[in-house]
């Protein structure tokens, strides 16, 4: 079954908003997330395919209502829990 990210050719997403971004990142946390991904990948904690799979396994409703870098963050959290670096729920505990 196709996952929610597989949008090629589907209809109903409306016009493309071609407005150019003033800056590559809209907020500082977005840059931190990109840096974290690269740092963790560099250490071999996970690879690009695992990272994509984590994003692409997101439930459709969540996928469609989160921003691009929020999905990245969520995928990093999932992978860190899967690899045993974080305990499940540790990030949001206390």
């Amino acid at each position, binding site marked *: 079954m196709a996952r929610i990210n597989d949008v090629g050719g589907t*209809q109903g997403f409306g*016009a493309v908003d071609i*407005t150019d971004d003033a800056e590559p990142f809209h*907020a500082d*946390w977005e840059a931190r997330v990109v840096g974290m991904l690269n740092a963790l990948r560099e250490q071999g904690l996970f690879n690009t395919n695992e990272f994509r799979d984590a994003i692409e396994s997101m439930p459709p409703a969540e996928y469609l209502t989160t921003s691009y870098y929020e999905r990245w963050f969520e995928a990093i959290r999932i992978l*860190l829990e899967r690899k045993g670096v974080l305990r499940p729920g540790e*990030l949001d505990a206390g």
Partner: protein
Amino acid sequence: MSGDHSDATIARRVRRLETLLEDKGVLSGARLDEIIDATLTGATPANGARVVARAWVDEEFRSRLLADGTAAVRELGFMEGSYQRLRVVENTATTHNVIVCTLCSCYPLRLLGPSPSWYKSEAYRSRVVREPRAVLAEFGLELPAGTDITVWDSSAETRYMVLPRRPEGTRELGEEQLAALVTRNALIGTAPV
């Protein structure tokens, strides 16, 4: 966007994750800063523009670039490590190329700089493979009815970059001046040069 509630929440969670990873010795804040700086300074469409300008002035380089993009951009010192293959696709009098990643956002970051929000949008990803001519027109690029459009869908392993056509009347320009004509959107295929 910044300052609204959800943005504050995620910013706090990102900070907390960074702290947790530092405490566990998995990540250092200094290394993170280095990586972010390298991303912001090392990944820019000026790199892709240099590759294009070289191909316009050096026929042998152009042939190598189209035959094996990965090796050719490495000659100029550009290649990133997270994907295996770069394929450069050439616009001609009868063919126009445009790139997308329908599944997500794969893109030759080092050569094109951080991708614009629209490249990552569901609207662009879903539509450019179905009605490329209409989407390109929305970017202000009206192609003649006789021009073929090829859409290249990127993957984690293979990324694409467009080699735009050299504009008329640029015979006198040097490589640097030519590079200055090449925009990020021209490298994606949503604008001409």
